[in-house]
């Protein structure tokens, strides 16, 4: 049984516990053990806190890494923002001199980080540890007819030099996953563009962020989709909550429901929509009716 230290971050446990539940359920099905990182904090948020003080960002990131190091485990997580911070911090802290400076501060709280903790996005765990064969074998409910707008988000792929998942221009892993569950990934304009939330723009310039979101949703709607699927909790929030905000401002009529990848996968694995938290999103899961799903069988 493969084990990971499960880094929760902020948005998933505090705003979208459904994603946390879905991820834990799905990983359990694949016999991937998620251990708690007791006392972890915000990653810290790369866009806001990284923009304020990169050195503080690095030391708080190192503290989170040190918790996993104590458990003797690599980290997995669900948010591209957390991934941006912790994966980048782990790369930066491979440098001895930088690690030394960080450890001088961690020493004050009787901690240290030795380096070498790997940070893996849930996408990587599904791809590398589980693999498409096992994924296929667990699909019990083909999501035939479901038209999906795949949204990749930015920070799983970029900067490509340190993420090393290949080119960021035309990624396919999410489309592949959508096909794997029997659904259709629908091409739409500006598929690779940011949701608008990152870089502290959602908190600092919310209208600018919503403008991104509106344009993306309009492009998705124009392509005729039933739902949005994303591998990032923060993008998930921006689309789910953002569309409601746009509707409330009178800028958007029809909202497109959003699923996190483990929610999509869980649905295809026959898990119940309630347990996957699909009803806890701001936008109701209208696609369930189309798929003829009322309740789960697990």
């Amino acid at each position, binding site marked *: 049984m493969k084990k990971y230290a499960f880094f929760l971050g902020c948005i998933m446990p505090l705003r979208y516990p459904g994603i946390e539940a879905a991820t834990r359920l799905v990983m359990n099905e694949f016999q991937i053990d998620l251990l708690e990182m007791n006392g972890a904090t915000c990653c810290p948020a790369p866009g806001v806190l990284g923009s304020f003080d990169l050195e503080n960002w690095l030391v708080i990131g190192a503290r989170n890494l040190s918790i996993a190091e104590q458990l003797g485990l690599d980290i997995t997580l669900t948010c591209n923002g957390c991934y941006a911070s912790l994966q980048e911090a782990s790369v930066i802290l491979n440098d001895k001199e930088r690690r030394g400076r960080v450890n001088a501060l961690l020493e004050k709280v009787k901690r240290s980080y030795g380096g070498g903790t790997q940070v893996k996005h849930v996408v990587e765990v599904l791809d590398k540890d589980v693999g498409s064969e096992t994924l296929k074998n667990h699909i019990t409910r083909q999501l035939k007819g479901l038209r999906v707008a795949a949204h990749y988000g930015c920070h799983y792929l970029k900067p490509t030099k340190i993420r090393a998942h290949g*080119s960021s*221009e*035309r990624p396919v892993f999410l489309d592949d996953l959508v096909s794997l569950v029997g659904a259709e990934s629908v*091409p739409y*304009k*500006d598929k690779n563009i940011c949701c608008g939330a990152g870089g502290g723009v959602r908190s600092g310039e919310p209208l600018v962020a919503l403008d991104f979101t509106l344009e993306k949703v309009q492009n998705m709607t124009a392509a005729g989709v039933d739902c949005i699927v994303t591998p990032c909790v923060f993008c998930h929030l921006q689309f789910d909550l953002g569309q409601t905000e746009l509707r409330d401002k009178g800028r958007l009529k029809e909202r497109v429901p959003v699923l996190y990848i483990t929610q999509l996968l869980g649905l295809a694995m026959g898990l119940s929509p309630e347990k996957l938290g699909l009803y806890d999103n701001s936008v109701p899961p209208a696609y369930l009716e189309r798929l003829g799903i009322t309740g789960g069988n697990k």
Partner: protein
Amino acid sequence: MADERIGVYICHCGTNIAGTVDVEKVAQRIAGLPNVVLAKDYKYMCSEPGQAMIKQDIRDRKLNRVIVASCSPRMHEPTFRKAAQEAGLNPYLVEMANIREQCSWVHMKEPEKATVKAIALVAAAVAKSVFDEPLQMREVPVTPAALVIGGGIAGIQSSLDLADQGFKVHLVEKTPSIGGHMAQLDKTFPTLDCSACILTPKMVDISRHPNISLLAYSEVKAIDGYIGNFKARVLKKPRYVDESKCTGCGLCAEKCPVNVPSEFDLGLGTRKAIYVPFPQAVPLRYTIDRENCLYFKKNICRACEKFCTSGAIDFGQLPAEVELEVGAIIIATGYDLYDAGHKAEYGYGIYRNVINGLEFERLVNASGPTSGKVLRPSDGKAPRSVAFVQCVGSRDKNANLYCSRVCCMASLKQAHQIKEKFPGAEVSIFYIDMRCFGKGYEEFYERVQQEGVRFIRGRVGEILENPDDKNLVLRFEDTLLGEVAEREFDLAVLATGVIPRADTSELQSILKLSRGPDGFFLEAHPKLRPVETNIDGVFLGGAAQGPKDIPDAVAQAGAAASRAAVPLSMGKVELEGIIASVDEDLCSGCRICESVCEYGAIKMKEKSGKQVSSVIEVLCKGCGVCGSACPTKSIKMCHFTDDAILAQVKAVLRD
């Protein structure tokens, strides 16, 4: 060793050396060393009076060793050796101490330390010179023939230039016809003359020239030997058509039922499985493409054979090997086009109406797949708006940092052609800098401006495709206005860069050539020896050395021919006297030297019942690898003996 009479000459090199190093002090200190008869400093040692002074001293003061402390021996060692020889001294008794590149230039901010270092370097040369022995240059005859590799415009030019001088030329071309990229071009900038019209007469000249033997559809597999005496093995690939019988009538292709995307038209048009790449091909001989021929695939058809009136089809033809003996080699292998698919943001290979510049040439060419009508690949309609996207794969650290030199002018020319065919079309060129540096180029830029082509200073960020009409949306910043914009075009032409050919590495290892950081073959000196290579007798013509337009490729190819003609017309070459020699009594016959020699210059021979190594003098380059690898110290490097080098080291460490 009391007989050594050493003269030392310290060069100022203007202020290059004297501005940093205290040359007088160096001369004073060196004058006090044993065996040093005189030590002088002078403003320019390489000048006529400087050389005259050395010659005078050799005669008057009976010098038998000369040390020149100046620049790198790569610059002036031949100069001073020649001067010594003229004064009756064996040229190998001249030593150089490099106090410019290795001293004054790198220690410009520390003159005192530089002076100390200069003294040490010169003292080391003095110490070594005591061990120098007179050596002889070796003279070998030259085969008065040349091998030209590559049959594009550069290879054609080099071949004709050498053949016209009376030398035998073997021109080897990989594809079924000579002509290269130039044959694919429509009109050429800035004069707008038709590419084929100026190229094909030269191609015909090649086929008719009594001194040229053309080996098309052939590849160079191996080259041995040295300047004046190279041996090349060339593989003639089977055409499955007897070249001596084929008349080029084309009936076979007419009857061939198989259509294949044409390489010459970059897949925009088709050819048959038996084909000539283009109507003016030289040699005008058909070739069967084995991969696609029904006979080879399924053992059926044979239509070509049935209809060929001269009985030229020969399905049983085998590859043949030809061995050539030549005195000089010219590399004219040209370039490849950057694969714009690597810039995924531009959608090349995904969006049908995004094409590259060479594809545009085929579309605009009267003998091309659209008979010269520029039509959109997606729907065959004439474009009303065309965007030219510059610097795709050039000036880009994620692709190639260098400027490809031809794309600005090529796009200007193509923009002009669009305006000529569709005066109402909106044509925009997106650029970082317009680089129009050649003769008549800026004037052509001005002309195209006058024609109403729009110039937008901004490298394109990305291209989107409208799924319904397949029009393209370019996203860019007009940097001169600071305005972000999206603009729709019917067709986008990517000015893809020029890159080294994919098979450059193969030829590099066959000839042991050097390549620059850009991947192109490296010239011996960027300014003064631009067509020579690190291998004597091997020259570079055209874009194999770096991106070039036609005038520059032709100039370089002509220069390569004229450099290659030097040894060919001399009839003999002198080879370096510094080579390895084997002490056969010490040699254990372990053959390590044989395995490390890059030049195949070591052979084993029998000597009083045991195997010992021996040096093939004409092949030895004097690199010294065998000497340092020899476990029994039985190989001696003339001019660089262990004793000499240790004396040098000791001299450096003395102070």
